[in-house]
């Protein structure tokens, strides 16, 4: 009896608070898109703690590769750009609640996330999972992490994969600063994170006694996102087109170079794949 009441109650709550499901193209209201156009400003959620994709420069301005992409979007629409710093743990909520119009925030494209936000195709970048480990330890194989404490950041989807596949004991901190400090304090044997971010750490010169010794795994494309209700409407279709052109024109490869990111084979392949057949 009680159980039934609880179940009914939960169902009631669930039904009452259900919000936007993906809509068909013929239901397009283009609310957010119209708001951007009429207001003359697009608000884009980007990272502020993920150098060089999105971070703060000496003046406190948010800059980076993804901010440049956001600027491209604003320019193409002919509106002003406002960037808002988001975190992995709140970026989808910001978009759902309308605090931002869209998001370009180093987000891996995962099936679960596609249920909540409108991730457009094609993807614009990719990264794999790797570890930053001290040279002194000399890790060669993923298997060597078994039973060892490995630092990570709350919010990364591969924490679970590394724990389950290789038996590593993932100690996940709330921020990257804490996780990296714990690695320096020798509280863990490695720090598990995106290979692209680790590469930029190594390039910074602050991690000379460390290395990225493993073969990257679980290569996962990144997705930018619009509100889920507008995925198949003007906004989503427009962003698909933007991304396509970024690949075809070589803009993404150019930005990768500009921000000192190690060239990824993924962008080369996509550039080839989408090549204009009439181009010289």
């Amino acid at each position, binding site marked *: 009896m009680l159980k039934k009441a609880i179940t009914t109650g939960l169902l009631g*709550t*669930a039904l009452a*608070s259900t919000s936007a499901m993906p809509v068909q193209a013929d239901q397009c209201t283009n609310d957010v898109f119209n708001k951007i156009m009429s207001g003359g400003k697009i608000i884009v959620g980007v990272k502020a703690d993920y150098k060089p994709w999105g971070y703060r420069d000496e003046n406190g301005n948010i800059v980076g590769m993804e901010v440049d992409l956001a600027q491209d979007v604003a320019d193409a629409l002919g509106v002003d750009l406002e960037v808002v710093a988001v975190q992995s743990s709140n970026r*989808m909520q910001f978009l759902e609640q309308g605090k931002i119009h869209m998001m370009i925030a180093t987000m891996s494209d995962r099936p679960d996330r596609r249920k909540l936000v409108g991730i457009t195709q094609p993807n614009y970048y990719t990264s794999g999972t790797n570890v930053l480990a001290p040279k*002194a*330890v000399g890790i060669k194989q993923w298997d060597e992490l078994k039973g*060892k404490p490995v630092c990570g950041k709350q919010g990364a989807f591969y924490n679970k994969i590394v724990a389950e596949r290789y038996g590593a004991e993932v100690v996940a901190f709330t921020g990257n600063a804490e996780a990296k400090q714990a690695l320096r304090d020798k*509280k863990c044997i490695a720090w598990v994170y995106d290979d692209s971010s680790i590469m930029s750490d190594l390039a910074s010169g602050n991690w000379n006694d460390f290395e990225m010794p493993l073969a990257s795994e679980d290569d996962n494309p990144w997705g930018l996102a619009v509100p889920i209700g507008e995925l198949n409407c003007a906004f989503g279709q427009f962003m698909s087109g933007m991304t396509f052109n970024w690949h075809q024109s070589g803009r993404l490869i150019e930005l990768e170079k500009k921000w000192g990111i190690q060239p990824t084979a993924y962008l080369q392949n996509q550039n080839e794949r989408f090549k204009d057949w009439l181009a010289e």
Partner: protein
Amino acid sequence: MSDAMIESIREFFRQLAETHPKWNFIYIYDPGVGERVLDGFWMTIQLSVVCVILSVVIGVVGAWLQRSHHVWARLLVQGYVQFFRNTPPLIQLLFFYFALGQFTPTYSPDGWLEQPVISNVGWAIISLSFFAGAFNVEIFRSGIEAVPESTIEASESLGMSHLQTYIYVILPLAFRVSLPALNNNLVNLVKTTTQAIVIAVPELLYQLVSIYNDYSTAQNACMVLMFVVYIGLVGILVLGMNRWERGMQIPGYGA
């Protein structure tokens, strides 16, 4: 509860997640995720119980030292109370684990790792107990000051020592006065255990945050569970404290 019934409940929530992607109660139908929740719950219980007991012990001892004839003992307690009461517990946790953690002895299982003898769970227990203990010292002091001077003089005239007076006369009376305030502080302590997430203590919040990061659709469901668990936990604590309070009541004394 029969297996068929459990399965039908699981099936219901599996369906709910399909039809309502924001209400993915994954910990109900996925045994692996359920286990993580239970692990976190168990850690929260352990943290809470150990910290509650230690903080009360710290409070009793601290309040006793505050009445000491030795000036340095009184100063020590005063310094301790000021330090722990006036700084945020979040910063205490970070400071203890990262800063003080460097000075504790370590052992190395493989030549590189330096595992401190005090783990992050250990630091969380130390830091949270001392944090709540500082308040408890003051709470017990207020109780002690409510014990009439004449009562203390009477016990001294009976030949009781300083410690005997404290244990057999002052504390039992002071306790009754202190209980409502102590109650509040312990409730706060149980809730503050969630802050141990910053030093990666795998308590309930840590596990639930990890789960809704792995399954974004489970965020609402995880938050609902968080509230339910804490309402339950704090409810049990308050119920126990209230019973204790009633059990110790002396007619005509105190509230």
